[in-house]
């Protein structure tokens, strides 16, 4: 049982001395999932960017909703400001009618299927994007994105992979639609996962 309160005049005898402040308290497990930063789009903008991403985690995860002024289009990403031909990506997707598998880029200048826009008028696409071992300098960076949008029918669901051919630790992520702007209330939340 933990000591939580002392009243005046309290006295103690024959107490065990502990070296840990946790004595008598439940064991403590440090959290492994932290919010790093969140961006909510206030007005139409061409991109959002997370910068100065700390290297204190093992994995990154971005949870987002987004819409664009052009509706249902691809959302792209670049890392560390790299605009070189160092990206490729693949996508498995279904439209409600058919399923497809695409290879959309070899030595591209961006990761082209990071996420998917909404319908352009208040229906948002939703995505969870996982970047494992983002600071590992022995690895190129592989990204996995599960994304979807539905607007009372006429939706799309996809699982995408992306490759950034760089062993540099990721310290910034720029996210932008293939055309047009991100709409107001699009929201991007970056989390760090400790290993």
């Amino acid at each position, binding site marked *: 049982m933990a000591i939580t309160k002392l009243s005046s005049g309290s006295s103690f005898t024959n107490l065990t001395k502990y070296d840990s402040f946790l004595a008598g308290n439940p064991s403590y*497990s*440090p*959290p*492994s*999932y932290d919010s790093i930063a969140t961006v909510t789009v206030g007005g139409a903008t061409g991109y959002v960017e997370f910068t100065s991403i700390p290297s204190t985690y*093992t*994995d990154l995860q971005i949870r987002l909703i987004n819409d664009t002024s052009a509706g249902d289009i691809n959302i792209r990403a670049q890392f560390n400001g790299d605009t070189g031909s160092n990206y*490729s*990506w*693949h*996508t*498995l997707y279904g439209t409600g009618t058919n*399923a*497809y*598998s*695409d*290879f959309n880029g*070899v*030595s591209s200048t961006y990761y082209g299927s990071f996420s998917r826009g909404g319908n352009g008028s208040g229906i948002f696409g939703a995505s969870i994007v*996982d970047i*494992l*071992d983002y600071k*590992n300098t*022995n*690895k*190129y960076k*592989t*990204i*996995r994105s*599960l994304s979807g949008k539905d607007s009372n029918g006429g939706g799309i669901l996809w*699982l*995408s*992979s*992306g*490759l950034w*051919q760089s*062993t540099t630790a990721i310290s910034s992520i720029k996210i932008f639609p293939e055309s047009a702007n991100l709409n107001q209330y699009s929201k991007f939340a970056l989390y760090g*996962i*400790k*290993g």
Partner: protein
Amino acid sequence: MATTYTLIASSTVGSGGVSNIDFTSIPSTYADLLVKISIRTNAADVTDTIGITFNNNTSNYSFTRIRGNGTNVTASSASSQSNVETGYADGNNATASTFGNLEFYVPNYAGSNNKSFLSDGVSENNATEAYTGLWASLWGNTAAITSVKLVPITGSLFQQYSTAYLYGIKNS
């Protein structure tokens, strides 16, 4: 704020590779398990598949899967398996230094029901061929999960720098 997401164990493959990754003595104090894996094998192919077993049991696994290879989509299922595929790794023929990215989520792993779980995983490659896949899987066993073993299906070794992290998820 309650701590709901806790690292239980991790594994990083060293020089020379390993034939499997085995998480043992998993405590029953969480609601769900989550495993995140960044992995490459020595398979002589662009992509390898990762298989898992629970509690060293080699029976009663099944799955339903949809996958794409960069060109085509296929859906399939398998029953009465000795392990269950749960995602993709890059093989030796993929772009160098590139690793598959996958995770699987096991709800109610310590409960007394059969164990249903979900996986999604991708391999990558700077060329047409790479795999993306989603799985719904079943281990037809009511025992609490106390260990998880990962093995390459085609290759014999997980390559250096491969990593796997096991998390416990609490719901209170």
